[in-house]
């Protein structure tokens, strides 16, 4: 699509959507959101960018092949699943670490569950972009 307005707007919109998607990813454990929704939003941002500026430029901006992103997500999920083995738990048992926890606040929670959710994010993001880029290039 050859529209200057769309091209300029798309850059900003894509960036905003990406940031928003990551925000959705991290808030997911307590509020609506999560890896799946975050991945969808992120992919939408990049698709907008690809529609406006062409897949070639979108691929260049992404730097990594989308299918590699999906595979990396799967790997992250797998690692989070078996990280619990170090602590002698069954696979997929969540392991939590609260940094700076006090009586009033939980502190910053870090967990294998979060790694798993990031894996889901990357899978959804990578898989959808793989598909859309391939289809757009096909046409």
């Amino acid at each position: 699509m050859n529209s200057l307005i769309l091209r300029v707007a798309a850059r900003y919109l894509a960036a905003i959507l990406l940031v928003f998607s990551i925000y959705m990813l991290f808030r997911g454990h307590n509020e609506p959101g999560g890896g799946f929704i975050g991945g969808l939003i992120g992919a939408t941002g990049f698709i907008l960018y690809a529609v406006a500026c062409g897949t070639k430029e979108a691929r260049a901006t992404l730097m990594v092949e989308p299918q590699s992103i999906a595979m990396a997500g799967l790997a992250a999920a797998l690692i989070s699943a078996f990280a619990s083995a170090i602590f002698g738990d069954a696979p997929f048992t969540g392991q939590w670490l609260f940094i700076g926890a006090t009586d009033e606040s939980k502190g910053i929670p870090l967990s294998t569950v979060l790694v798993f959710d990031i894996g889901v994010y990357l899978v959804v993001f990578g898989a959808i972009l793989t598909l859309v880029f391939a289809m757009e290039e096909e046409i």
Partner: protein
Amino acid sequence: MAAGHDEAKGNGFVGWLPVVLSAGIFAFFLRFLPQIAAGETLRTAFAWAPSLGVELSFLVDGLSLTFALLISGIGTFVLLYSNSYLAGHPQYGRFALYLFSFMLSMLGLVLSDNLIGLFVFWELTTLTSYLLIGFDNESPKSRRSALQALLLTGAGGLAMLAGLILLGAVGGSFEISQLVPQAEAIKGDALYLPILILILAGTFTKSAQVPFHFWLPNAMAAPTPVSAFLHSATMVKAGVYLMARLHPVLSGTDVWFWTLTIFGAVTAVFTSFLSLRQDDLKQALAYSTLMALGTLTMLLAPSSGYAITAFATFLVVHSLYKAALFLIVGCVDHGTGTRDADLLGGLARAMPFTAFAAALAGLSMAGLPPFIGYIGKELIYANTITAGDAATFVTFMALAANALMFAVAGVVALRPFWGKKGETPLKPHEASWAMLAGPIVLALLGLAFGLMPLWAEVNFTTPTVAAILGDASKAKHLHLWAGVNTELMLSLATFAIGFILLLAYTPVRRLLERADAATPSFDNGWDNILNGLYKAAKWQTRILQSGNLQRYLFTIFATFVIAVGGTMILKGAVNLGVAIDEANSPRHWPELVLIIVAALVTATSRSRMLAVAALGVQGIGVALIFISFGAPDVAITQLLVETLVVVLVAVAMLSLPFLDERGKNDHRPKDMVLAVLMGVVVSFVLIGVLQGHLDLRLTEYFEKTAAPEAFGRNIVNVILVDFRAIDTFGEIAVIVVAALSAYALLRTTDNSRDRDEEEEELQ
């Protein structure tokens, strides 16, 4: 036999390893012999799938030990033999692996005490025999034979599995040893007949009873003779074995007695005729194996001491002489280049050791004293004349089969070696010691058992009878001379008829050939069945897989409407009695109007783009409803997915033609009717679901535990990433696979187009 291999090179390590291993297995089982002969039984079990009652449990008693010794002992000789027979064959390693796996599966089968474990080993023998029969995979004939054996015994095996499961359910256990005390209850159960029919379907196909007999001779025609030999000599007895193993559980009813008697007797006589008719020595032996299998089946029909002793004896008799003779025919084939009975003759001078072994094995097969074959035959007659109602029938059938066997033994074991010298393709030469070891030892064993019947009785037949009848005292004695009695008279009659058949061999065979040509061929019948199946498959493929996407979707949705809607109407589940309050409330009207209008636009629009966009609007309407019911997660996902679907479909649409103008081929009215029906059915299903009592235990559990155990307040996300993370992992794996497959698919078409363009440019 596969040509083009270097015999001088041998097979080295790969050739000898299986021989040593199987000899070790034989020695291992031999150690149990004194214990089993003393009347003990040994059992060992490993848990496998305990929740299903499936164990790897092994039982060593007289029956299984006799089989195990036959399998591992003859297996050792066959492996030794094939190492020489297929010396230097490029794929010998593979062959030895198949053969050895087959042996192990067979051992597992006869030792298994668990019905399910037994079935697994049973199917493993089916698979490994498929690999063995089809070993020469470049020959269409051996491929066909292998497939035929696989399909036939595989189908029988599946029927048997159903029977075994029913048996386990009725008897309350899958362990055969625990089913035996339940025998009376099982026989009285209404499911007894189905169980019997299903299990016998498995055993009859496996042990090639008429009318399933044709696969076995075909399997013998496989060009790798040793595999076929092994199969025939010891291994197709799997079916017979299972009938013997389940004899204490299932026998004793009229239907058991008459089914086994009739199938066994008909198989024995019918295949003896076929056996005498063959020119090919191996084929003749293959058909005579069927005779033995028929006889063994017939002997398992009653539960008398004579019958089971005869079974145990004839089992050993047949295994010894048949394995020896098959190996001998292989030696003859190897040494002369042919197996044609008409071309062979006077080989004794050139192949003295082979001739010696053949004579011993042949005399045992013919049932002459002092061989174990004679004792076996006497016992068969002793059983048939005491068979009550069936006595006349089975005695006559046994006499006919035995006399024919006498003649076949003469044709196979004597004619090639004595008399007039034949014209053979190769100059006859003696086989190597490795090939002769098996036939000579096995043939001598046949003589030794005959001369020392007490030894065979103590070690094999009595423990086997004890295992089948549960009572060692019912076992009969084995002896060469029992005085002048009916059995002796019948034996003499057998020899007389057999001798006459042998003298009149040429005219008899011509007569049989004519009769055989006049009877319909089972093998052709099999082909017709398969062809019919292919035709039916093609016909239904043409109807269901038309290649038209629209028709596929129409079929799928129409099936859904008919199956689900029809069931609801038939079961009277359509109920509008309870009003859905929530949906009637006015605050949902805007969304409903939006959805309905968008649906109408989708259905009537001429432009694909508009239709897709309207479809998206419809999805957004649904998302709004989700929001109003307090499910923001679902609503966000719905919104995003709708957006992406519109984008994806829009991209795909660019390469599609415009919609048809309304005309003759307009499928929209039809589709619209279907769509409305689909909506009605789904609505009724949902209303039905909502009217039922919703089990909220899981919801409550997650609500209670999400925050304390998984440190999250968003239950949906906590379930996804914590409580049911392994499911989510499976789903994202599917997403990745789907994306990569779609990518590969799009790339392939893309590349092919590039290639076409390149070719055009080159031109």
